[in-house]
């Protein structure tokens, strides 16, 4: 017959009391752990995704949009830039490497990204099976896409225009073949289907009216900026200015072929350029140079994301503050609940004194009960926080393709457990002063 057993029995004999004093604690712990995990994972994800890129160069517009679209792939692009202009930056002495990316199509909501093989190296993406693309219309699938869509090596994929799953016109005439699947990397690469740049250009090189008005409208509404690069316009531009010698039709494959070859460099466009600097001077000088002297814009992912997180951060801080306040209130509610049980059980406590239990043992009895409450409350709260995270993860995955990890308890959370227990201990000591003043004779006699 241990004190802990009596404490446990005492506690479960009044489940309603227990639930009441647990409620606030569970709420606060779940809120704190949830917000903590969410902000930490979002930050972690962001860091992982932006650290391989020092600077993005793309069409003029919002720098944040440029970063969100070209690095994190969760927004529409600002427009296109000319490849030959971009190449000047690639050759710049401050630039260590610059990877062109071009995109605008999706397969069932997952972006098809045209880029150099250097992209894989930059993100340290490793093949799980198959090989890298060698020619056009070969796709390497990120692990999450492959898993979600059940893609297999050798499978055919028909892309559709636009970046959202619904509404885009399908490019049925130019199916892609899956040639490789990447290992999970925990970066945005997991969510992408990657091909070479030429595939993206070729996919849209039949601009002969199949991109009708309807789509034009869709694009404009999607992108909402007057620069409005996108394939439709790109194609129309090709159509209007370039290739005067060609009068191609969609089913005219040979023409296409020729056209590809004839597409002059100055007419090739990419969505953006992912730049890594040789040294920090580049970071200081190049963005300003580009923004002031070209009709492209340079955005620094680190800076932009920091700015974004700064905005989110104040929200996170507010939530944390609220959660901490609830935690304190829950400590107070534990105190009240213990005070109440001590009052209600004065006779039992006096009885235990006649059984030979000293005041210290009685204090332990209450302490056990308080710690029990705190521990169970923390545990339930923690589990609830994780459940919320799973729910939010499902939502984020559906909306943005990002997956949150559901981790075991972390150090900060153990600190929170410590704080919770400490609050419980303080509540116990405040509540149990009456134990020391307990008049056994009077308490038992009065009944």
């Amino acid at each position: 017959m241990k004190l802990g057993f009596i404490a446990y029995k005492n506690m479960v004999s009044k489940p309603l009391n227990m639930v009441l004093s647990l409620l606030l604690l569970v709420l606060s712990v779940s809120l704190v752990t949830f917000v903590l995990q969410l902000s930490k994972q979002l930050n972690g994800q962001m860091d992982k995704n932006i650290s391989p890129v020092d600077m993005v160069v793309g069409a003029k517009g919002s720098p944040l949009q440029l970063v969100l679209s070209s690095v994190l792939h969760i927004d529409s692009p600002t427009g296109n830039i000319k490849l030959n202009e971009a190449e000047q930056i690639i050759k710049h002495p401050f630039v260590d490497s610059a990877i062109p990316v071009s995109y605008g199509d999706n397969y069932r909501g997952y972006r098809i990204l045209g880029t150099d093989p250097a992209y894989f190296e930059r993100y340290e993406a490793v093949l799980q099976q198959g090989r890298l693309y060698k020619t056009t219309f070969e796709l390497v699938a990120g692990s999450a896409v492959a898993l979600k869509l059940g893609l297999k090596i050798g499978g055919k994929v028909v892309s559709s225009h636009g970046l959202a799953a619904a509404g885009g016109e399908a490019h049925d005439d130019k199916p892609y073949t899956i040639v490789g699947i990447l290992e999970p990397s925990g970066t945005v690469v997991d969510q992408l289907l990657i091909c070479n740049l030429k595939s993206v250009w070729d996919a849209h090189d039949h601009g002969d009216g199949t991109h009708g008005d309807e789509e034009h409208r869709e694009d404009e509404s999607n992108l909402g900026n007057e620069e409005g690069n996108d394939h439709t316009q790109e194609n129309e531009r090709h159509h209007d200015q370039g290739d005067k010698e060609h009068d191609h039709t969609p089913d005219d494959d040979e023409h296409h072929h020729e056209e590809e070859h004839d597409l002059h460099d100055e007419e090739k466009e990419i969505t953006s350029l992912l730049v890594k600097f040789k040294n920090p001077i580049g970071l200081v000088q190049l963005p300003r140079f580009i923004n002031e002297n070209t009709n492209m814009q340079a955005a620094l992912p680190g800076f932009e994301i920091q700015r974004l997180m700064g905005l989110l951060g104040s929200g996170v801080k507010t939530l944390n503050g609220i959660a901490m306040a609830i935690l304190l209130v829950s400590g107070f509610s534990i105190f009240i609940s213990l005070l109440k049980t001590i009052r209600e059980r004065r006779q039992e406590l006096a009885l235990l004194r006649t059984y030979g239990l000293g005041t210290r043992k009685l204090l332990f009895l209450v302490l056990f009960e308080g710690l029990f409450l705190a521990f169970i409350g923390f545990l339930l709260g923690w589990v609830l926080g994780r459940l919320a995270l799973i729910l939010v993860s499902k939502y984020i995955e559906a909306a943005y393709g990002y997956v949150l990890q559901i981790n075991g308890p972390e150090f900060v959370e153990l600190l929170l457990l410590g704080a919770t227990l400490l609050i419980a201990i303080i509540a116990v000591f405040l509540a149990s002063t009456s134990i020391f003043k307990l008049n056994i004779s009077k308490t038992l006699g009065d009944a």
Partner: protein
Amino acid sequence: MVKTDGLHFQYPGGEAFDFPNIDLSAKDHLAVLGPSGVGKTTLLHLLSGILPASSGTIFIGNTEITSLDRKALDKFRGSHIGLVFQRYHFVKSLNVEENLQLRQYFPSKLKDKERREAIAERLGLKAHLKKKVTQLSQGQQQRVSIALGLIHKPKVVFADEPTSNLDDVNCERVLGLLKEEAKLCGSSLVIITHDQRVTEHFKNQVVL
């Protein structure tokens, strides 16, 4: 076994009591009689060490409990004194058996299942061991209370008005059980009561 000398108690700013000297030998029984308000319960609390005497000495066995510090007194009371209260006191969240276990365990860490079952058998509680105390009838609760007073084989059992709410038949029965159990445990028995029916059962009597 129980020996008092010049026992005096003064409630802070209230009544004062002087008690006659008591000298009870081991395994003997004593009835302390008197009308309400003469300090019977006070005396019982003094003798059992839950109320400190203002002056005078109390010996239980060879121990002068009036000179023990609080901690030693707690321990002594737990091991050597049994109490049967006028109103029954239990740990309500525990069942009958757990209440008995609890009384056995502190402070001597005794775990004697056989004794628990034997005493429950004798007191007709065996079928109720797993029940919550609050589920029992008044009479059953009284018997649990007696079992709690004696389960740990105390040197002395103090019973406070154990028969006051009982009819004649039950009064006889409870006194019989108390005396019998005290005999079996080798404990002295002190009953404090205003109930005249008790007098004929005790040859040693102190009247307050």
